[in-house]
């Protein structure tokens, strides 16, 4: 991934959270992860990416820590014990972030499509990303909670 594409992704995440009135949004560094990455004690939401770039976007979070974020999305209070509603809220957050990413990449001349979110609450999940794609992880922290954003994308040559 080009650095401007990674920046477009991070800007999209920060802007989405900011528009939801989540203050003090911090992107806590970027790290490259192995193509098969194990998430422990996390629920995940994944969104497929297609078109000018191919791969996936994943939000990984702990149920308890995501309750406030999910509440901000739902515009109502969600109990930290309500795993289902928290996951649904995080899925909608992932959808908003992915859509913002699509808008930002469009401005850079890259047209992508996104799938509807898929939720997984398997407590010990392996994430197998594209073997030839670079996978980066960014912890994102805000006043309403935190989650990890994983991005695995590769350019898709025109005509494929």
């Amino acid at each position, binding site marked *: 991934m080009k650095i401007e594409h990674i920046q477009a992704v991070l800007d999209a995440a920060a802007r*989405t959270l900011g*528009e*939801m009135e989540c203050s003090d949004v911090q992107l806590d560094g970027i790290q490259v992860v192995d193509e098969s990455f194990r998430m422990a004690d996390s629920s995940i939401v994944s969104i497929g990416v297609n078109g000018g770039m191919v791969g996936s976007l994943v939000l990984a979070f702990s149920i308890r820590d995501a309750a406030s974020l*999910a509440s901000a*999305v*739902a*515009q*109502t209070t969600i109990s930290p014990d309500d795993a289902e*509603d928290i996951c*649904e*809220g995080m*899925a*909608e957050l992932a*959808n*908003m972030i*992915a*859509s*913002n990413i*699509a*808008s930002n990449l*469009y401005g850079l001349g890259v047209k992508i499509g*996104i*799938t*509807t*979110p898929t939720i997984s609450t398997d407590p010990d999940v392996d994430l197998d990303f594209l073997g030839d794609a670079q996978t980066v992880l960014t912890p994102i922290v805000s006043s309403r909670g935190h989650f990890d954003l994983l991005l695995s994308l590769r350019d898709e040559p025109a005509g494929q």
Partner: protein
Amino acid sequence: MALRVLIVDDSRVARSAVSRTFQKLGCEVVGLAADGGEAVELYKKMRPDFVTLDLVMPKMSGQETLKAIRDFDPAAVVIVVSSLAMKEVVVECVRAGAANYLVKPFQEEKVVSALRKCFPSHSRWQENEEDAIGG
């Protein structure tokens, strides 16, 4: 009389959030649809004053749903509510008959502005400005 709205979104949380937003503005939610097929059926049954419509949905996309509703009722007022903000997408929706386009997450004043444009002569807007935005 309150404006009657049909909410269409495959996300339960999004349906709930959009419902709350429009209810705060005095609208009556007459139906909630999780996909395009359900949306068309509910539209035929409930004949709402307007529809809010997500774009990225499984099985039947928002654009396909918009076309189906407008084919049934060319006068249907459909407000697209989506996180996608590309000009190309907005233009495509407007050309397909969308009355307005709101980008999620949206601010209340933008929703009020959209409703005023869609229903300029509705009695809701004859009240003073403070009442119109729920103040």
